[in-house]
């Protein structure tokens, strides 16, 4: 008897869960335009994943408040990618079945590869929010578009910006990077073009982003004693690296992150205050002079009680780009929307770059990272000039 009761109860629970899930999707949706969002909402990257969805919601609400797209309201459908390629594939499939007009995602390059393949197969436009892998758009796919700079973009920004940071007595470089596609891609690219800068690489230090300590790597850096340190990695590992450097009072003439997951994050400066002053980072960022930036930053702070993680601006912008294309296409037809996306020429946006225009491969031809320096415990854009919020400060002020 007890067993039967148990069985009946558990069936009830499952039925209730299934019902509550399906109930969300059965609403009448003839008047809405659905956009799919595939990001890691659980697991170790859930913080960033959730931030993308948050900023996308802000964009959707803004467009709807202004009357929607040709009278129809936008609706965001977010599905968890679990941070894995398999999860992203399932999510893409699920969203296509929900009849979304376009997909967005995915934060990790592995997931983005899979989604772009699925998007191509079903002829559904896919706008990458963040995924930096340089090879992502090299398959000749027609339905995938990327707004942000690739790893090559950031790395060539480094080569381009280094003359503004480098002084004559800086000769040697060490790169400490997380050893997946992203870190390795950037490190190898910089290595391949380092001759152009007149610098010499004296150390390449890969580490696993899952490492529980980077003490040994930092000790290695002390013995190498480079003039320029280039750290590349995600938030938690780079935070660990910075903590080790700051606590042990280890300094180098220049520390220049490239697409660093921590240095450009507001949480990072909240943690270290002025102790991290002088750190550089070449990264994506919003245009500080844009009114839209101001709106997004304020709205995010008010709704979610914290500063927007910088990567999430691409969540907002991805929706804006799709909305722009939807308006021009005048329909949610996938083919028409794809063609409208390909013809994008958007000058009103919050990125520190010229117009958003996609090339044949779907890359944003004007995409660029900016050079950021931490000054007085805040990230300040110091280059290019038109977006600069301050000048480069060369002498690192003493911490003590």
């Amino acid at each position, binding site marked *: 008897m007890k067993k039967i009761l148990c069985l009946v109860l558990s069936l009830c629970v499952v039925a209730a869960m299934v019902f509550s899930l399906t109930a969300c999707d059965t609403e009448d949706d003839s008047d809405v335009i659905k956009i799919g969002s595939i990001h890691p909402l659980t697991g170790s990257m859930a913080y960033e994943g959730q931030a993308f969805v948050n900023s996308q919601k802000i964009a959707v609400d803004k467009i709807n408040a202004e009357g929607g797209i040709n009278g129809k309201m936008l609706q965001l459908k977010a599905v968890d990618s679990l941070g894995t390629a398999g999860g992203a594939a399932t999510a893409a499939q699920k969203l296509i079945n929900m009849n979304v007009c376009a997909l967005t995602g995915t934060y990790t390059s592995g997931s983005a590869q899979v989604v772009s393949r699925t998007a191509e197969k079903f002829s559904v436009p896919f706008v990458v929010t963040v995924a930096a892998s340089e090879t992502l758009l090299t398959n000749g796919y027609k339905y995938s578009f990327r707004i942000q700079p690739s790893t090559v973009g950031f790395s060539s920004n480094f080569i381009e910006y280094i003359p503004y940071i480098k002084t004559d007595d800086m000769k040697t470089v060490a790169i400490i990077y997380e050893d997946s596609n992203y870190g390795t891609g950037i490190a190898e690219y910089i290595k391949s073009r380092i001759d152009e800068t007149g610098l010499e690489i004296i150390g390449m230090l890969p580490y*696993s982003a899952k490492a529980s300590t980077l003490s040994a790597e930092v000790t290695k850096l002390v013995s190498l004693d480079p003039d320029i340190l280039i750290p590349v990695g995600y938030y938690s590992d780079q935070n660990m690296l910075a903590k080790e450097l700051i606590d042990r009072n280890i300094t180098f003439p220049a520390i220049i992150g490239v697409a660093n997951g921590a240095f450009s994050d507001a949480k990072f400066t909240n943690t270290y205050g002025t102790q991290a002053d002088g750190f550089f980072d070449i990264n994506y960022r919003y245009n500080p002079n844009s009114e839209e930036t101001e709106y997004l930053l304020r709205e995010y702070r008010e709704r979610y009680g914290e500063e927007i993680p910088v990567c999430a601006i691409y969540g907002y912008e991805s929706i804006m780009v799709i909305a722009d294309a939807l308006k021009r296409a005048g329909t949610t037809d996938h083919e028409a929307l794809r063609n409208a996306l390909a013809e994008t020429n958007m000058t009103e946006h919050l990125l520190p770059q010229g117009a958003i225009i996609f090339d044949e491969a779907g890359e944003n031809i004007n995409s660029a990272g900016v050079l950021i320096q931490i000054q007085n415990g805040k990230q300040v854009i110091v280059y290019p000039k038109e977006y600069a919020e301050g000048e480069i400060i060369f002498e690192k002020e003493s911490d003590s």
Partner: protein
Amino acid sequence: MNMQFFQAFLDGTLMGGVYALAALGLSLIFGVMKITNFAHGAMMTVGMYAVYVVSTSLGISPYIALVFAAITLFALGYIIQHFLIDKISDAPTHNQLLLTLGVAYILENGLLAVFSPNYKTLNVDDFDGAIQLGAISISPEKLVAFAVVLIVTAVIYIVLYKTRIGKAIRACSQNKEGAKLMGIVIKKTNAVAFGIGALCTGIAGALLTPILSIYPTLGETFQLKCFVIAILGGMGNLWGALISGLIVGIVESLTGYIAGGSWSDLTVYAAFILILLVKPSGLFGRSNRREH
């Protein structure tokens, strides 16, 4: 031996101590209950969040908050054993194993729901940078962690060897039927043992909180490391776990220093496999197979 090499050795030793404490908990649980606790890493994360919450909300040092984490984790471990694992103690081992896996998911996703996936960093005001001894610098957080590990291990040793409940736990781990015949209440003893095991990993987590940025799934990183250390030390062998923890910490750090961090895991696991090939019961494990 140059100074930097020694620095890497020292860092490895200090971190190894923390690994050891977490693994010791796993080893103890296995030794007594003969079940592999897949929720060990998640419990460690619970310990981290306990310290984070208590420390930030009461504005006290994480090293005082550690006591709360220890109590919370002991209670959590006791409850999990008493109300969950014990209920299916007659079920096949793989079912018990899956139960702990289920607990791990519930804990992780519970943390995710309550604390959001946002990284949390705890600043310790107690310390002002690293301690400099000539060319060597020592992280005070790691030094304190190591000292606490030694104290906790000593206390657990005393509990296991000098107290009534400790003797009961050891009796259970040696021979369950025999212990029962001697009048030991197995159910309670198991729950206390699981509680102590959870307490170990909770304290290890608490000690890492000032060192790492914490997030709900952080424990996964340590789960596998704990397995390796506990197996290397001989499942159920506490001293073995302690020494193996130090070995893993040192190997990891020296590999990171000499060859680069990417090689750390590879070296640790390669050494692990090699040792198992030579000595299948682990470095300090007894080779006789008594029960199964």
